[in-house]
């Protein structure tokens, strides 16, 4: 019952937060110079004041700010994110077409970074002065300091152009014929480089954090107790130390959700990955306000849901958090 109450409180706060994000996004968009009327006028090859005013009136852009905000919120609650005049289709369906590709990339990259990062962290924590540990530190520093788009381009040059292991761009080969497995394998081949690129920054964070966290738990009293029980090295490290060391890693994963999504914009652009990132990039260039707002809304939604999930997983790992707000 307590757990249920905690969950409902969490969800209530999440909804409030989402609302705040919506208001903030809309306000900022409104404050920025230029609107869709400019873009339409531009594509028509220029327009006079009268035509501009007509366009603004047609799309409700001449109404007071508060009215525009109100009608925007009203529509979002009904999951109507407006109509993209640039792409000529409803924003919701536009985003839903692109969302799976981004989710696939973001989750795979997070999973890759987390698993490899924790494994590297644990290995180097057990021999903090070993060669492998120094190697992990070096890789982490490199991965963290190199800009994602640069890493992406280097990987492209190395593994798509010089050694032609992986495709250069896109998510699938449209000319490919074959059943489900052939298609899946094709998507996986397309995913390898973007996943490594997007994962590289986070890999560094995870490996450093799990190394530090693991070294702390390995020196703790309960690990000494586990050794005094005569348990094997494996049980001591993986059962007793690792489960305790995971909490900060999971917390970081939740915080990183937002960063992964912003990183996805760059990576998707480099690899022409047909996800929200490329959509965001194109619609910003086109000043396609409804689409940008829609993408912001979805990213906020993803971050908030990601945080709720993190919270939930943390409670599974650490019994001390059960039933606490």
């Amino acid at each position, binding site marked *: 019952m307590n757990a249920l109450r905690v969950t409902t409180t969490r969800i209530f706060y999440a909804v409030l937060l989402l609302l705040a994000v919506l208001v903030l996004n809309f306000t900022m968009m409104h404050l920025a110079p230029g609107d869709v009327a400019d873009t339409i006028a531009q594509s028509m090859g220029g327009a006079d004041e009268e035509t501009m005013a007509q366009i603004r009136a047609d799309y409700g852009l001449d109404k007071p700010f508060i009215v525009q905000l109100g009608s925007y919120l009203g529509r979002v609650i009904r999951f109507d994110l407006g109509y993209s005049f640039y792409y000529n289709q409803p924003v919701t369906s536009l985003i839903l077409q692109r969302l799976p590709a981004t989710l696939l990339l973001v989750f795979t990259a997070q999973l890759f970074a987390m698993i490899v990062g924790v494994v590297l962290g644990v290995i180097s924590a057990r021999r903090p002065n070993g060669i492998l540990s120094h190697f992990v530190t070096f890789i982490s520093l490199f991965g963290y300091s190199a800009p994602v788009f640069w890493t992406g381009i280097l990987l492209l040059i190395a593994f798509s152009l010089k050694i032609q292991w992986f495709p250069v761009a896109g998510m699938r080969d449209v000319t490919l014929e074959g059943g489900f497995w052939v298609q899946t394998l094709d998507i996986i081949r397309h995913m390898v480089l973007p996943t490594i690129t997007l994962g590289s920054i986070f890999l560094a964070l995870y490996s450093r954090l799990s190394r530090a966290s693991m070294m702390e738990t390995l020196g*703790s*009293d*309960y690990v*000494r*107790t*586990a*050794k*005094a*029980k*005569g*348990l*094997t090295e494996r*049980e001591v490290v993986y059962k*007793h130390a690792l*489960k*305790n060391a995971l909490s900060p890693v999971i917390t970081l994963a939740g915080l990183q959700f937002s960063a992964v999504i912003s990183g996805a914009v760059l990576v998707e652009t480099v690899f022409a990955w047909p996800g929200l990132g490329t959509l965001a990039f194109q619609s910003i260039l086109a000043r396609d306000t409804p689409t940008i707002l829609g993408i912001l809304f979805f990213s906020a939604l993803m971050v908030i849901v990601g945080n709720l999930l993190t919270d939930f997983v943390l409670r599974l*790992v*650490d*019994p*001390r958090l059960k039933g606490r707000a």
Partner: protein
Amino acid sequence: MAPLLKVENLRIELATRAGVAPVIDNLNLELAHGESISFVGESGCGKSMTALAIMGLLPEGIGRVASGSIQFDGEELTTASPRRLRQIRGNEISMIFQEPMTSLNPVYTVGEQIAEVLRAHQGLGQKAAWAQAIELLDAVQIPNPKSRVEAYPFQMSGGQRQRVMIAIALACTPKILIADEPTTALDVTVQAQIFDLLRDLRAQTGTSIIMITHDMGAVAEMSERMIVMYAGRKAEEGPVDQVITHARHPYTSGLISCVPHIMANLTEERHDLTEVPGIVPGLSEFGQDLCLFAPRCPRASDKCLSARPPDVPFGSARSSACWHAEDL
């Protein structure tokens, strides 16, 4: 009968920034079957190091047994394989620690933490180990063991956690239980309960106990024999009542005089609390060929500063490492 545990000429070296220091220097001791002895001394005298060495748990890469031997039931432990040591740890020799608050793993139930040692050493299955864990909780007098077995350590008090630690340590009915200041972190009423429990369990199982403490009261209550340690060396050894009534080492007399006296009548004039002046020397001072206690000793003479005193035997059971032991 051969002693259960026999430590001979044990030297443990710690790698410090200033170089290698002998944290235990030429230590000899014996523990008989079913006997209870106490290691007494200030912090930093090597009591816990000795215990960790017996467990084979000296801090990796920092501490090592440099020479000497530790024989358990006739088996040499200093050269035993890690695999063999794991079989002994928690099974034939087990240990409870000073800090019950942090010695249990926060993310597992106490039942799991007890059951796991039974599965490791007794070959019990999940169910049998769990049932045994409930019985052990009952044996260490935790009320309502059937439901408490599923509690997490954070849901228990310090005294209860130490009881759980005792349950873990005694799960496989070990031949030796090492208790490293088991009550230091607990309040006084709980301390008495834990000592009662240890005494009862010892009577039931016949386990030998090594108590590490600086509480003279605990020594008198729990042990037959005591070993006073100072700066990594044995200062004095003997039956508890004899040592307390007639100490043969100035350090022992100092420790005993530090125990405050409870007076029957509060109007009586009170004695000042006494102390042993000075502090235990730093690790870098260890290992010199002189009496390391001399700088703090009221009886120190030139001889004390020129050579390390040997263990002088008094009768069959006592010894003292003091040049002036005969005069005391």
